[in-house]
């Protein structure tokens, strides 16, 4: 039952994914106005030569904060896993 559900989901996902190369053309994007804006004005607005950095830290800086937070969260989570447990914490349910 559970296995069947997983396989069904897998088939749906695979079918969806297979449609991507048939429908999306590589190298000729349909719209590019947002990125043209970055390439045209990014250098003057942020004074950074590297437009990728300008996007990462200026135009989409908030995403980068989120991404650093993800790393921080993972570190805290890993630390939590390997903490020294107290004796009275070691119980088992049922």
């Amino acid at each position, binding site marked *: 039952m559970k296995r069947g559900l997983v396989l069904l989901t897998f088939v749906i996902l695979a079918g*969806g994914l297979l449609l991507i190369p048939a429908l999306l053309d590589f190298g000729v994007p349909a719209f590019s106005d947002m990125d043209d804006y970055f390439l045209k004005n990014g250098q003057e607005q942020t004074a950074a030569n590297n437009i990728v950095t300008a996007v990462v830290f200026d*135009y*989409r800086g908030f*995403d980068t904060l989120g991404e650093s937070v993800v790393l921080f969260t993972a570190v805290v989570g890993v630390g939590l896993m390997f903490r020294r447990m107290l004796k009275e*914490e070691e119980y088992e349910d049922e």
Partner: protein
Amino acid sequence: MNGFLIEHAPALLIMLPLIGAFATPFIGRVSPRVRSAWVVLIMTLTTLTALLLASDVFLNGTQIYVFGAVTPDLTVPLDSGGIPIRIIFTVDAMSALMQVIGAITGFAVLLYSLSADRIHSGLESFYTLFLLMIAGIMGMVSTGDLFNFFVFLEILSISSAGLIAYRIDGGLAVEAALKYFVLSTIGAMVILIAIGIYYGEYNALNIAMIASRMQFTLLDKVALVLIIAALAMKCGSVPLHFWTPDAYSMAPSSITAMLVVASQASLYGLFRVVFTLYNVTLNALTVGWIIIILGVLSMVVGVTMAIPQKNVKRLMAYHAISQTGYMLLGVGVGLAVLGNQPLMDSFGYIAMEGGIFHIINHAMYKGLLFLTAGAIFFRIGTYNLNKMGGLGHSMKYTMIFFIIGALAIAGIPPFNGFASKLMIYESVFAFNPVLAVIAMVVSILTLASFVKVFHSIFMGPKLPEYETVQEAPVPMLIGMGLLAVIVILFGLFPQLVVDGLIAPAAHALTDQSGYIAAVLGGA
């Protein structure tokens, strides 16, 4: 000062928990008491910000915050030709409602957790992750940018996974967390593929921008399928629900109450995608029926799996799946008649309001029930129903809170579950009577299941091994009491809540052009 606060409230709502989380490991070194005070302070400030922002949104309409612009409301730069280029927070009535749910539940859960989790080690990390979870929920429900949504989804799932595994429990909790985390990582990646498809087609990441360019081509259908599959998994709907009982039962009870809110944030994402990103361009009837079927399956499977459970938290987790079904059912009916104004006015809006009202009600009573289960575990150290009995003599307040929660989940007046379920029944009956009958039967089964649970936990003679059991500590009771009061108030004055909070949220969700106009300006 007040103007500054309201103007920057969407940013502060994320910044406060983040700063709190970054500083908690240091402040925890000072003393546990200082750490608790710090966490409570941060959480209070966050709650106040959320309430302030929500009151402003409900009074003055959608609030916009543009990160990195000269002024927070400059969504479209003058020289860009009408496209938003930065990350924009769009807080409309629906987002504000979700923020209020997150803030209130988080506050109550934090008070409860101060004494419930006191005996554990690694508490600085625990509270750090707790605050990060709050930040993740707040970010998910307020963002107007799809990639930003993905980032906050990841923050939420990583912190949830860490917290589910918190008790370790001889590996059992880690196993539950592993199951949850593998599924949610794959789900997040699938969402990222969908975001990539939107980006490749429309070169935009802003929800309003994509919505205004939406063509509903075959690729958009693929993206819709991917995103619905992933978010339905994250909110614990049936085809991929099996992580829910494990994760909910192995997490500390305080975290379980937050996980309910977390899954509702995913539900919010699902509704946001369907209603704001696609709206009438999609074949509303088909997608509406898909969501309705998911909802009905969740309701039926959840409640039938719940009845034979022996572990009280597993039982409640299956009921959570079944209640998620009600929300999907209500909103799905609203979606199925979207675009057909007479039907929408006659029952569509009521169905959606019922579904959305059920979200807030579910967060309150389910949180309350999980907290009572945690209080019982705190005193007697087991979740097994067969080992419990006669606790009504010694844990009177906990028993009262449990009764309130159980009656609310079963939809008995005058509690809030009744109010929202009634709205769902009457509107769904107008749409398709069979669905309404199923919903009522599930409700009756829920009541039966909780009567059984209540009987085996609290009734009967006092068992000898629980002779010395005392009432739960006061901070835990305060946390539970806060939620119980809301359950009763919402049940007594449902019309007030529906008119003031729920109806604006439902209309904001269906009003795609209003959302686009708020971000892009004009209409």
